[in-house]
């Protein structure tokens, strides 16, 4: 696990080596042209930065050397000293000594002693002549050559990595196309080459994805402060427990969920956890517990926000949902806990009775939901009244490649991200009932509404979907059960093609306004395949159900 101190150290090293290289370059320039103004200014700036950074890291000796050199260069810049004679020799020795110190820091070794050099620099600053030891001779070229060293660390802009990932995406699509062609042509040499290309591009893809991974810790470690602030504003005592900081995830995914996680944590402290008085009354320890943990589950990363607070009052949410007109009292009464909790993620739905500074400003859990939808992630909630609530963010490790199920409707292929699929069913007519114009089946003891996918895809205007009748169910039905916000929906499709990893590309205009599609992918056959947006399909079904 990389702690923040380690990160600072790596950054310091990378920058210090860079400064050292620049100093050496500018010194050579200055030696050729002692009055080169820009080189002088630059040397002064580099010494100054190295001094400040070294002192911040606690490398006093290095900071001291840089400080002395900075002072001397200040004098040279102000033309009180000239870059010539014995001064040149001391400056070069000083910069070399700093290089040696930086390398010693990198190798975790004690810093070399430089007292004699410091004293000579002091003499030069005072306007005296430096004193050289008898055995002090210029370094041989061989020795200098050994000390050339580049940093092991490269800083890359995320933009460049994004670009690389896009290119790999394109490559993978062409690779699949070549693979299909090779199989069709049945040429052994071509097939062998295609297979080799397949393996290499797979490796390349995972290497690029790997380069974008960061530890979840870089985000989680920001929370102790947040929790402390919110808790003290609410006069609560909260113990925050962090775990799984070293779980790896794509940097952009972490960026996208930052606000969502911040919201969940603030919410947990200000609404989830009770006041000290309430906790005492409930016989709970006065100090509330908040756990922020990350873990990997198959290809996904789970981030959990768990509190031991009051839990969700399911009946209150049920009432509020009816009040808000999100459902009718009759339907609300039949909904199970999970279905009721799903209302918490509706836009503008807030259970806060009073608005505090920290949360409850009309920004609700829907923001969290939206962030996860945009990533193709899931939000799960578990709660027990009086015992606490757990929110789980289910995130893909990488945004590049997603597992998808390919289906066919009206002779066209569509891809459905596996993140949203629960199961596939082949249903006989007798397993399907018609209730209030909606097809219904039971799966794992729960009623699941069914809808022919083509009805949703061809839907236009504001009319509700046509009423379903028994006549709609002829023969076995292929059903893909999708899951969004704890709501299951069975999509009736013509056939299942196969499961495949796909690279999703954004839709180009004007198609990007059609919100039923999350993007487009190319199949190995070269065929264009639209990627279905399960949240959008579910929302469409809910608003249009007869």
């Amino acid at each position, binding site marked *: 696990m990389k702690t923040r101190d380690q990160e600072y150290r790596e950054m310091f090293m990378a920058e210090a080596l860079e400064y050292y290289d620049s100093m050496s370059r500018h010194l050579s320039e200055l030696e050729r042209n002692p009055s080169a103004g820009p080189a002088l200014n630059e040397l*002064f*700036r580099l010494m100054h*930065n190295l*001094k400040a950074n070294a002192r*911040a890291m606690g490398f006093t000796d290095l900071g001291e050397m840089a400080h002395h050199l900075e002072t001397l260069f200040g004098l040279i810049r102000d033309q009180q000293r000239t870059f010539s004679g014995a001064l040149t020799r001391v400056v070069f020795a000083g910069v070399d000594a700093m290089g040696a110190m930086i390398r010693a820091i990198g190798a975790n070794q004690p810093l070399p002693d430089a007292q004699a050099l410091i004293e000579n620099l002091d003499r030069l600053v005072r306007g005296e002549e430096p004193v050289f030891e008898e055995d002090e001779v210029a370094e041989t070229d061989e020795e200098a050559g050994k000390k050339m060293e580049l940093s092991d660390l490269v800083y890359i802009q995320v933009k460049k990595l994004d670009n690389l990932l896009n290119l790999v995406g394109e490559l993978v699509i062409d690779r699949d196309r070549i693979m299909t062609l090779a199989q069709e042509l049945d040429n052994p040499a071509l097939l062998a080459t295609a297979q080799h290309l397949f393996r290499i591009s797979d490796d390349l893809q995972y290497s690029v994805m790997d380069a974008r991974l960061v530890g979840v810790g870089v985000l989680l470690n*920001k929370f102790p402060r947040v929790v402390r602030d919110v808790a003290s504003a609410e006069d609560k005592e909260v113990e925050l427990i962090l775990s799984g900081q070293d779980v790896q995830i794509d940097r952009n995914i972490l960026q996208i969920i930052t606000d969502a996680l911040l919201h969940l944590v603030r919410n947990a402290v200000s609404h989830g956890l009770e006041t000290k008085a309430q906790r005492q009354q409930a016989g709970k320890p006065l100090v509330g517990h908040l756990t922020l943990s990350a873990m990997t589950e198959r290809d996904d990363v789970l981030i959990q926000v768990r509190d031991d607070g009051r839990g969700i009052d399911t009946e209150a949410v049920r009432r509020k949902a009816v009040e808000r007109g999100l459902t009718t009292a009759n339907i609300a009464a039949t909904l199970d806990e999970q279905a009721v909790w799903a209302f918490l993620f509706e836009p503008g739905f807030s259970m806060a009775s009073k608005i505090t500074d920290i949360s409850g400003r009309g920004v609700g859990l829907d923001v969290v939901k939206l962030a996860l939808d945009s990533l193709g992630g899931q939000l799960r909630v578990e709660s027990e009244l009086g015992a606490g609530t757990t929110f789980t963010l289910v995130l893909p490790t990488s945004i590049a490649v997603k597992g998808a199920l390919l289906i066919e409707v009206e002779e066209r292929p569509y891809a459905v991200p596996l993140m949203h699929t629960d199961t596939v069913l082949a249903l006989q007519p007798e397993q399907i009932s018609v209730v209030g114009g909606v097809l219904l089946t039971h799966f794992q003891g729960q009623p699941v509404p069914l809808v022919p996918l083509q009805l949703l895809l061809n839907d236009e205007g504001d009319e509700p979907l046509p009423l379903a009748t028994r006549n709609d169910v002829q023969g076995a039905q292929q059903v893909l059960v999708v899951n969004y916000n704890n709501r299951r929906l069975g999509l009736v499709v013509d056939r299942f093609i196969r499961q495949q990893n796909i690279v999703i590309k954004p839709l180009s205009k004007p198609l990007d306004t059609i919100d039923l599609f999350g993007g487009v992918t190319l199949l190995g056959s070269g065929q264009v395949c639209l990627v279905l947006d399960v949240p959008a399909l579910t929302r469409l079904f809910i608003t249009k159900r007869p």
Partner: protein
Amino acid sequence: MNKRILIVDDSFYMRTMLKNMLTDAGYEVVGEAANGAQAVEMATSTSPDLITLDVILPDNTGLDVLKSLRQVQPTAKVVMCSAVGQEVIVNEAIENGALAYIVKPFSEEKVLEIVGAALQNDAEQTA
């Protein structure tokens, strides 16, 4: 709302450390500039409440940058950052409208104290 801060420093390490300290404390770091030109551009586009400004920058002296910043973003509070040895420039900076200065190497407490006080000053002036 969280106060918005622009960090101007030519050292990546320094910027990162400052950014971590400030974001941990709940401030929003709206930009990180590594030189004077970037600083002026970002100050214009992000309208920060406060700017931390390194005294010595590559393409310009911090003092010139300070003057430009005061022109493009007169409402932004400016706090100078400097290692010891640059007191003359810092004093001149204060005369040119900088509110305070942070001496490198800095502690988290000191940074938050100075930034908080500079922003407090802001609240008093607008109250």
